């Protein structure tokens, strides 16, 4: 009886240590939800909105993880491509679903090009892909500004006065996306108990998830998993390692672009110079909150992550206000938690990697002890 109880506690302990981040988040949410005083109905509807808004973006991170390239901080590149597409359709006055489709079509070649470039660079920085892709994001932000703030309206024709800065070139800080605002969300939408559910958006996300599941079963998917486990073994077997890695980044960038379009159609406005810098950080944090690690992530992590991360995000300002009368504190808290989660996950990953490497020695030591007996 005692033994049974012991294994039970051990199992719980293992579960907690293996899922430290999600468990931590469940605890934070459990404390702050009652503190915030939000109704279940409100929270539910908010969460549904955010699942529909963000999941696509987060799913785009899965494929580079599969190929062993870690968290693709370069997903902002796709977001930038999407923003350029959206600026174009806003200028041309294309609205609704056709507008979204057209923006996606425009973003695709840009994403492919950027993804290819990013993949090339990451192949030159093997072993530190993450920090490199992170800097690539910053670097590309500079180029993006060059294009959008200085070339658009000057070299690249932009007709609409609503988009261009009064000085005659460059795009304004915010672009109103009223033309495509919620056009996908409202295409087919269902209302249950006062909560509206954007069926069409969910359908798109489900299709994407099915694609990812299917993709794992293709030759390319198999190659990516092989490359992710051991580049040298994969190379010895004749798999084109570098090409495979580049393709994984291209796919991720293109999907991130589409995700960004879905994200922005829900938001309704585009912060020309800021939107993309935020999504990378938030998507990665959400994925990690869902229990993913740098080396392993699946679709379950995506949805669990969106739910937990955004619950915390929604309730923390209110909880902060009710707890110490300072909403600002809650806002800082959630920023802290987002960064903290990424830090914690990265540290846990590195520590575990080290521990794995030491395991052989421990086994030898155990052998010795047995021999000694």
């Amino acid at each position, binding site marked *: 009886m005692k033994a049974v109880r012991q294994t039970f506690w051990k199992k719980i302990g293992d579960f907690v240590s293996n899922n430290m981040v999600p468990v931590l988040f469940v605890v934070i949410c459990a404390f702050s939800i009652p503190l915030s005083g939000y109704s279940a109905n409100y929270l539910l509807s908010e969460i549904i909105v955010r699942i529909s808004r963000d999941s696509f973006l987060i799913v785009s991170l899965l494929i580079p993880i599969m190929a062993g390239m870690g968290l693709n901080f370069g997903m902002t590149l796709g977001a930038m491509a999407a923003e350029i597409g959206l600026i174009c359709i806003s200028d041309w006055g294309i609205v609704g679903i056709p507008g979204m489709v057209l923006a996606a079509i425009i973003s695709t070649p840009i994403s492919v090009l950027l993804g290819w470039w990013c993949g090339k660079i990451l192949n030159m920085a093997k072993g530190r892909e993450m920090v490199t892709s992170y800097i690539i994001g910053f670097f590309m932000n500079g180029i993006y500004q060059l294009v959008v703030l200085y070339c658009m309206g000057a070299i690249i024709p932009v007709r609409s006065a609503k988009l261009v800065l009064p000085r005659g070139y460059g795009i304004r800080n915010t672009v109103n996306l009223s033309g495509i605002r919620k056009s996908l969300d409202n295409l087919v939408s269902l209302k249950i108990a006062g909560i509206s559910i954007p069926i069409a958006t969910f359908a798109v996300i489900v299709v994407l998830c099915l694609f990812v599941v299917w993709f794992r079963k293709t030759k390319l998917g198999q190659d990516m998993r092989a490359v992710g486990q051991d580049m040298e073994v994969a190379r010895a077997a004749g798999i084109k390692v570098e090409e495979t890695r580049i393709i994984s980044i291209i796919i991720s960038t293109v999907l991130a672009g589409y995700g960004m379009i879905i994200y922005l159609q829900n938001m309704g406005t585009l912060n020309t110079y800021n939107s993309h810098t935020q999504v990378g950080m938030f998507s990665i944090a959400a994925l990690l909150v869902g229990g993913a690690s740098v080396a392993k992530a699946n679709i379950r992590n995506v949805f669990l992550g969106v739910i937990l991360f955004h619950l915390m995000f929604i309730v923390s300002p209110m909880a902060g206000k009710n707890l110490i009368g300072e909403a600002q504190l809650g806002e*800082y808290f959630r920023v802290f938690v987002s960064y903290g989660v990424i*830090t914690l996950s990265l*540290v846990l990953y590195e520590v575990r990697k080290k521990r794995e490497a030491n395991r052989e020695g421990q086994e030898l030591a155990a052998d010795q002890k047995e021999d000694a007996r």
Partner: protein
Amino acid sequence: MRKIKEFINNFGLPRIIIGLFLLLLFVVAPFVGVKVSTSINDTIVRFGMNSVMVLAMVPMIHSGCGLNFGLPLGIIAGLLGATMSLEAEVHGFAGFMMAIVFATPFALILGWGYGRLLNKVKGGEMMIATYVGFSSVAFMCMMWLLLPFKNPTMVWGYSGRGLRTTISTEGYYLHVLDSFLEIKLGPIVIPTGMLLFFAVLAFGMWAFLHTKTGTAMTAVGSNPVFARASGINIDNIRTLSVIMSTWLGAVGILVYQQSFGFIQLYMGPFYMALPAVSAILIGGASVNKATIPNVIIGTLLFQGILTMTPSVMNSAVHTDMSEVVRIVVSNGMILYALTRKTEATR
């Protein structure tokens, strides 16, 4: 011809491009009506303001911890020192020294913890350093709201609690270093005190690298296995280097503030690491090699570009593209360093 190629290889193409670009800016400047003397003056002042933070990169690069993207942690120690010095109402040079004194224990403790953490994650230091910096800044955002500071110049007037986002150092230690032994050469004002202060710290760093421990630190960065085989405790040396980097970061931000005139709290330190990182790389450092000349040349080049581009661009094409130039130059330089084959072996 081969010599030129060798030179380019040794010095690095991006550095040469950046150097030539800066030269071009200085040549073009008089023609588009920019006063070169003001530009030089600005460059010198900004050099003084930033050089200590760039110097803070040196110990960690030497010990093989890579580029210190976690500089914000040191800056936070400096900010704590600054606010406490203001709270204690110490004015003038004494206030500045007091800030350093207050900042030191924080720098030591934070640096020690940060160093211990980095020892646990060898090989993945840079990414984790970045996020340690970010999370500590976010954490301090909460602290700035909560810490019981009372000095009315620092605290939000209407609520009576929580620190302001920017606090003026005027009346405390504004320009205490800048104006010390200030030399005026026509339109150029040289902030001798600030440069001297940097010189003292740089000399200290140079001297440290010539001691037994300093030699060990260089060896740890050059080949950690060799150092370990020679009986060096790698973890201790690395921790020491991180503590030094953190402390220099703390002092660096104080020097910055006394010249700039404001203490920037909350998200202020957030992206402070990137300019310092790219400056030392522009100066010729790599991910695991850096010298004092790298610091000086790099800071001069980088700050030179930062001061020259807006003024020249504005006068020449009536567009301020300096922001784009800054982003592309600094991040491009970091990318270059990260992707160099010879440096990727570590």
